């Protein structure tokens, strides 16, 4: 029996760490295991994928996982950018960090087990914060244990706790209590898929000379990367254009006055740091 797991997160949330921790726990429970990140440009805030394979026989497959049994989604916002249900096997399990109910999700498969848990809430309650942002990767491992119970491949919660305490040292106890809480709070239901299946048409293969053309938003609307929101106080602003000159994202436009393009601003706050009049205020950005 082989279980393959896919982790979805955003750069910096710890999807890769979670996949490593899971592989370690599985190894200690007596399984063969492997863990690998998706290789690409690893950037903060960008969608990140990581994979784990767990089996009771030696593993010879080393490719990335295309048809997972289990999918773990660390960030609810990622649902808008990535199709998390793609390739999930029939009867597989999808664990989502969200405040929604399992019934609220639609997918193409006939039946899937959906587990929802508010891991962000659990992290905040347990004071599990890193640089002001909630750490959701370890709490999400709690509900993952439940998914393995469904597969008849039990992993021990005690082993997970031991691995986490060893890895994080002092902060280990906070992580352990968060894992336990998330394990208990997880809500699981078997849901029937409602969305219609897309028929894939055969595409013609054409050979073109590869020329790219300039366009805005090659990485999509990068506002999703924003954790902090800059806001210009026009009463203080003296139109020195310093923020426009220094903006790394070209997201400040000069019309009659400087304006921030909130569709693309990544919230790096260079404008706020550079402003000589301190006219750029900053606040927390919340999308979901």
């Amino acid at each position, binding site marked *: 029996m082989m279980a393959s797991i896919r982790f979805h997160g955003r750069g910096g949330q710890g999807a890769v760490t979670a996949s490593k921790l899971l592989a370690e726990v599985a190894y200690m429970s007596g399984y063969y295991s492997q863990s690998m990140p998706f290789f690409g*440009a*690893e*950037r*903060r*805030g*960008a969608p990140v994928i990581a994979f784990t394979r767990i089996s009771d026989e030696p593993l010879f497959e080393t490719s990335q996982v295309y048809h997972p049994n289990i999918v773990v989604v660390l960030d609810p916002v990622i649902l808008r950018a990535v199709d998390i249900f793609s390739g999930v096997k029939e009867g597989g399990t999808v664990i989502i960090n969200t405040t929604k109910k399992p019934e609220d999700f639609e997918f193409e498969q006939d039946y899937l087990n959906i587990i929802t848990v508010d891991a962000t809430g659990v992290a905040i309650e347990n004071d599990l914060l890193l640089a002001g942002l909630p750490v959701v990767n370890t709490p999400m491992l709690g509900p993952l244990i439940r998914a393995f119970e469904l597969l008849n491949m039990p992993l021990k919660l005690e082993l997970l706790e031991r691995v986490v305490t060893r890895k994080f040292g002092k902060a280990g106890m906070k992580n352990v209590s968060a894992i336990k809480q998330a394990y208990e709070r997880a809500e699981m239901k078997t849901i029937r898929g409602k969305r219609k299946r897309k028929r894939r048409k055969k595409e013609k293969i054409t050979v073109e000379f*590869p*020329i*790219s*053309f*300039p*366009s*805005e*938003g*090659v*990485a*999509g*609307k*990068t506002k999703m*990367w924003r954790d902090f929101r800059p806001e210009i106080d026009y009463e203080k602003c003296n139109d*020195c*254009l*310093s923020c*426009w*000159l*220094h*903006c*790394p*994202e*070209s*997201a400040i436009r*000069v019309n009659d006055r400087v304006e921030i*393009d909130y*569709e*693309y601003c*990544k*919230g*790096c*706050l*260079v404008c*706020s*740091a*550079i402003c000589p009049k301190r006219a750029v205020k900053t606040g927390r950005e919340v999308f979901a």
Partner: protein
Amino acid sequence: MKISEMEREEYVLPGNTACHGCPSTICLRTVLKALKGRAILVIPACCTSVYMGPFPNSAIKVPVFNTAFASAAATASGIKASLEMQGDDTEVVVWAGDGGTYDIGLQALSGAAERGEDIIYICYNNEIYSNTGIQRSGATPFGAWTTTTWAGKTEHRKDVSEIMLAHGIPYVATASTGYLKDLYEKVKKAKEIKGFRYIEILAPCPPGWRFPMDKTVHMGKLAVESGMWILLESVNGRFRFTGVSRAIAEGKRKMRDLEEYLISQERFSHLSKKEIDEIRRYVQEKWSRLIKLEGEVDAAIAKFYV
């Protein structure tokens, strides 16, 4: 020059995949504004070749040729030769990281400089291979942490701007992300000169140097003010300091303490007193060598023209 007089057109489009607070996008915007978009970029493997996005889209509004790591200057020479035959005077600009300049691309760079190709070579130097995950490069300073130098690098950095000075090319300049107006003027000046022109920009990388993402510009300023990075310019062999570095060299301005620069980055957080003294010695030595060079050049020119 006032900021309001600068080119308003954006040549690096929003929505690219660069990190928060990326110095490379800040500088590339300024460089392309200074060239008014009349340029063909040649980009070897570096962060820029990634953040400009996947086929069939590009986040850069000028023609870009993506080439192999080692061959940026050679590719640019070929493109320029072709343009010359067609009677086109578009500027060919190499935009390379420090990996593609200091280590892998050095022989092509030196060859093109020696042949006197009519191109602008710009190196944005973030002192690491940051695109592949923060490995050491020839530009990494002594004592800096990278993923391949866990206890701090044990060698000093080499200085390609001095190597290019030795080539005797018409224009060599260094700039910093902290002083964009200075960079803008230098690129404009380089545009007016014919021959091989080399500009190097210090680009403080927030994830690689481990400092908060909003401090990119601040760190570029601090590097110059503390003397760790020196702004200089050499036009047809006439070598001089520029901007803040000039004020420091002339004694009009006091250098800020080097420790202030080192402490503000986590990559230097493990340094001992001895290692900080070693960096201080290196910086002082570099300054005294360059100040001597400036004096000698002045004396030689004075003698020649009498």
